[in-house]
């Protein structure tokens, strides 16, 4: 009887040790498949502008055992922003608008996370962080959905073992907050910009 108790205690301790030593994973968002994208939509009364960016990099530290403790930084290469009209794209990248030559990166860096709820492999949370566009940093809170896909890296990138983290977020920002051509008339270029981020990161083993 005494031996049985010791055995159970040893097993419980071993399990606890394993849980407590499970380290958070670092997910790299440089996507070899080129699927990661950020979509932007401006819907003004006279004109709608839709485009996307795919030059996305960055790292997120995610602990599958404590999904509510996410930290990280996502970077979008300003030059990768694309709209289907070539003249509009030229304007978008020019000094009056995004000035991609002077400000080559759009950066979101998380600072805190709250209201995290996990169901199965999906965690929803409100992430507060700093969004920097044209060198202007503003603190914003973004609703984010994280989907942790254990051992799924091999299904996406052959010969690699590891996990995937899918991050989805949709949130509005204001063009005027970041000094993106504030003189542009709002009936043609909306002040409100709807951003939709759809990205996946990999944590190889």
């Amino acid at each position, binding site marked *: 009887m005494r031996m049985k108790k010791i055995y159970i205690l040893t097993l419980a301790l071993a399990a606890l040790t394993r849980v407590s030593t499970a380290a958070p994973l670092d997910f790299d968002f440089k996507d070899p*498949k*080129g*699927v*990661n*994208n950020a*979509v932007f939509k401006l819907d003004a009364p006279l*004109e*709608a502008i839709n485009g*996307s960016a*795919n030059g996305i990099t960055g790292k997120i530290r995610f602990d599958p055992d404590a999904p509510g403790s996410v930290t990280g930084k996502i970077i979008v290469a300003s030059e990768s922003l*694309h709209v*289907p*009209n*070539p*003249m*509009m794209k030229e304007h978008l990248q020019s000094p009056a608008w995004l000035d991609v030559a002077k400000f080559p990166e759009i950066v979101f860096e998380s600072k805190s996370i709250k209201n995290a709820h996990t169901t199965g492999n999906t965690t929803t949370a409100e992430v507060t962080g700093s969004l920097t566009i044209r060198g202007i940093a503003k603190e914003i809170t973004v609703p984010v959905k994280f*989907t942790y*896909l254990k051992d*799924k890296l091999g*299904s*996406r990138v052959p010969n690699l073992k590891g996990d*995937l983290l*899918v991050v989805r977020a949709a949130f509005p920002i204001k063009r005027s907050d970041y000094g993106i051509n504030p003189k542009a008339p709002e009936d043609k270029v909306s002040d409100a910009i709807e951003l939709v981020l*759809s*990205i*996946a990161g990999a944590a190889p083993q």
Partner: protein
Amino acid sequence: MKKALRWVALALLLGGGTYWAALGAHRGWTQTSVAVKQIDDVTGLEGIVYRRQFVPGLDFLGATVLLAGVVAASSFLIPAKIAKSP
């Protein structure tokens, strides 16, 4: 000559309009690329790639109408043939 210019103007107008309508009657600006969505089976993400394709917009249609108008108007600048006296 006057008639020929008017026929050219009409051809430009009809040709431009037909070309614009045939390529989708796009009511925005002219595009030189088109977004194509691709679903990633593993992550379920919808990736976006751009395929090079010319899609004439309302600006193209406007330019065609303007050009046809200029050609038609120029026909009025050509003096009418003076009828030869018998």
